[in-house]
């Protein structure tokens, strides 16, 4: 299978990323060749998961703004309508509340809808439906009704999207009992985790780091972007496989310090460790809820140090929860205070993208600080 890029290599060299202006891009669709494995970018991998699940299960359907015929502004739902039919992949009104509410009703009926919120920054009109309805459905009805829905949404920064196309709202969902929150960092996990999310019987908030759609961005924004095809985790089976929710991935083993990250920050953390010259163990959480606490605990007890990296603002960010958990479980193994490298407690600023976005240098600084006992 050939690598289909949605923008040119020269664009990459210029530091231009696809994001929301990439509407003339070539389709990302994957021709499912049974049994094969090939390089896919994250868009293609997500698209493949949807194609495979929709072919397998007639109760799976997909809808969202521009997500039907056109295949979504990022092309993740490309060719679903053409291949599976109009009623199984269609455009929705610009009504995030309506989209999620309709999915909840469909889920209560017995379908497994996968809806797209065009940008995570737009998810707030649906917040009541997600928090008060989907999350509570099983509990409040004594198990009579459930919400087996997936709410997919591109999230995160690094694309010059300003405050309305860059946010990382994951902690608004991890705080809510009844929701699962999944954030993949590579094509292989993206497909396997989305498959698991669709098959899950509870509502899943599936956040896609859009800065990673076309390549493993490591935060060195002035360097040319490397494509996914060079990465082992871009070797994606064209058929079905499942990556279970609740399992972290140790992407780099190390002895000195544990880095907890997810989404784009996994790649930034790897780059930061390299920059600092520290033998860090980098853990990609993959699912924030349920959280693989065992892997975290074992790693921190081994290294005795912990740095947490996320794009979202620091205060009440998911890092606060991780920090508390590590402190509660690993306090006597810690040789330095836990450090957090995060977005600042400001709205996401357009002109200050790289001052806001946690990059490898900030991660390296935190690692060095933690290695010297936090002083």
């Amino acid at each position, binding site marked *: 299978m050939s690598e289909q890029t949605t923008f040119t290599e020269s664009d990459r060299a210029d530091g231009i990323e696809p994001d929301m202006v990439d509407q003339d891009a070539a389709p990302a669709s994957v021709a499912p060749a049974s049994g094969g494995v090939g390089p896919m970018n994250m868009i293609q991998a997500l698209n493949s998961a949807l194609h495979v699940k929709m072919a397998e299960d007639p109760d799976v*359907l997909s809808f969202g703004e521009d997500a039907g015929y056109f295949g979504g502004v990022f092309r993740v739902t490309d060719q679903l309508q053409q291949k599976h039919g109009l*009623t199984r992949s269609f455009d929705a*009104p610009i*009504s995030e*509340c*309506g989209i999620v*509410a*309709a*999915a*909840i*009703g*469909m*889920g*209560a*009926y*017995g*379908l497994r*809808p996968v809806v797209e919120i065009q940008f995570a920054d737009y998810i707030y*009109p649906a917040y*009541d*439906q997600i928090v*008060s*309805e989907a999350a*509570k*459905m*099983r*509990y*409040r*009805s*004594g*198990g*009579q*009704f*459930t919400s087996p829905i997936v709410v997919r949404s591109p999230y995160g920064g690094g694309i010059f999207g300003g405050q309305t196309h860059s946010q990382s709202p994951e902690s608004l969902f991890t705080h809510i*009992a*009844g929701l*699962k929150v999944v954030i993949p960092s590579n094509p292989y996990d993206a497909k396997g985790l989305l498959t698991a999310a669709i098959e*899950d*019987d*509870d509502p899943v908030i599936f956040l896609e780091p859009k800065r990673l759609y076309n390549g493993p961005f490591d935060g060195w924004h002035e360097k040319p972007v490397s494509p996914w095809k060079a990465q082992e985790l871009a070797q994606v089976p064209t058929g079905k496989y499942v990556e279970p929710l*609740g399992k972290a991935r140790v992407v780099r083993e190390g002895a000195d310090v544990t880095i907890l990250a997810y989404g784009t920050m996994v790649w930034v953390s790897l780059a930061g460790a390299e920059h600092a010259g520290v033998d860090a163990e980098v853990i990609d959480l993959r699912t924030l*809820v*349920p*959280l693989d*606490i065992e892997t975290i605990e074992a790693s921190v007890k081994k290294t005795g140090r912990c740095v947490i990296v996320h794009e979202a603002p620091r205060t009440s960010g998911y890092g606060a929860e991780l920090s508390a958990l590590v402190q509660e479980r690993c306090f006597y193994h810690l040789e330095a205070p836990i450090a957090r490298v995060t977005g600042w407690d400001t709205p996401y600023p357009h002109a200050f993208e790289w001052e806001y976005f946690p990059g490898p240098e900030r991660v390296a600084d935190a690692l060095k600080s933690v290695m010297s006992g936090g002083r």
Partner: protein
Amino acid sequence: MTEPTTAAAPAGRANRQPLSLRVPEPSGRPGDTPDFSHLKLDEPGAVDRPEASTAPAEMRDHAFRLIRVLDDQGRAVGPWDPKLDPETLRRGLKAMILTRAFDDRMHRAHRQGKTSFYMKCTGEEAIAVAQGMILSREDMGFPTYRQQGLLIARGYPLAAMMNQIYSNAEDPIKGRQLPIMYSAKDHGFFTISGNLGTQVPQAVGWAMASAYKGDDKLAITWIGDGATAEGDFHNALTFAAVYRAPVILNIVNNQWAISSFMGIAGGDQTTFASKAIGYGLPALRVDGNDFLAVWAATQWAEERARSNQGATVIELFTYRGAPHSTSDDPSRYRPGDEHEKWPLGDPVQRLKQHLIALGEWSDDQQTEAETDAVAQVRAAGKESEAIGTLGQSRPSVKTMFEEVYATDDWRLVEQRREVGV
């Protein structure tokens, strides 16, 4: 009234009139004589009945009229008479009587400290009872907190309702919800949310799913006049129209949203039914205290939905006779006798009068039905209270940690251990 202070107007704006803010007010407040002179009520039988296949644009007038069947003498008149057999009418009347008896007992139970909260549907019984009888249990109802008549009309066990209200060990939803937030899937009754309006777009989604599967089931939902101001309602109408969802969208206009009269939701500027027009949906506006009119309008919407012609909006024009809830005191904000003076009467009395006019009912039978309803409620009360009222009995504490997810994650396991259960 003091003149608003105005800054010196810029040149060219000196002649402009100062603006003023309008805040709508109801026609009467405590101590006032109820005034319903602003209501435009069609005569019984006066509104025509279009074919159920009529294009929405051809029947816009119906959003501003009021479909009535029963006249002042209790006769069924006009094209909307559903011509129900006496047995169906008697079943409807008995279900309404039972609903009222249930409300009375549970309201008293709250006053006796047996539960924390209750909400009556006094004056609105015809709506849920008639609609609960027309649609089947396989159709899914997405109710608000004032459609208990739906469960009662479908024979849901009264004791199970009480167990929910008491959050006792046999509460079907395990003590997890405020009293009256029932859930009864096998009776076509969706889990009630306390957040207003959320159920309406969900009902549309459920109906879309039925259509997606080529099924033959409908969804039916209710929302109050006040909650139509929520975005969810408007999102629902958009989705219902766009995807031609087989759903019946009821607006129960009972004039009051707690203490806010329907004008605060815009109901004094237009009718709630007319909201449908902008979405390209057909609308019917119905006397909600007229069992036959409710029945006929619902049947019309049902026929339309079952023949794949999509959704209908029905405004059920009624009056909330009781306080909003046991936490409310309407004497603080509306004339005390407004309900008694409501020009469209009481739904139970009107159906009773109709059956008597038909020669199919009598005052004695009415008394007997009321006595029987009280006895049924008392028996159910005995059964439920034997299990326990609020605080006397409850589900096992460990169930607090169950069904948050299909499978408990480690947090829930640890936290349950922390509680020691």
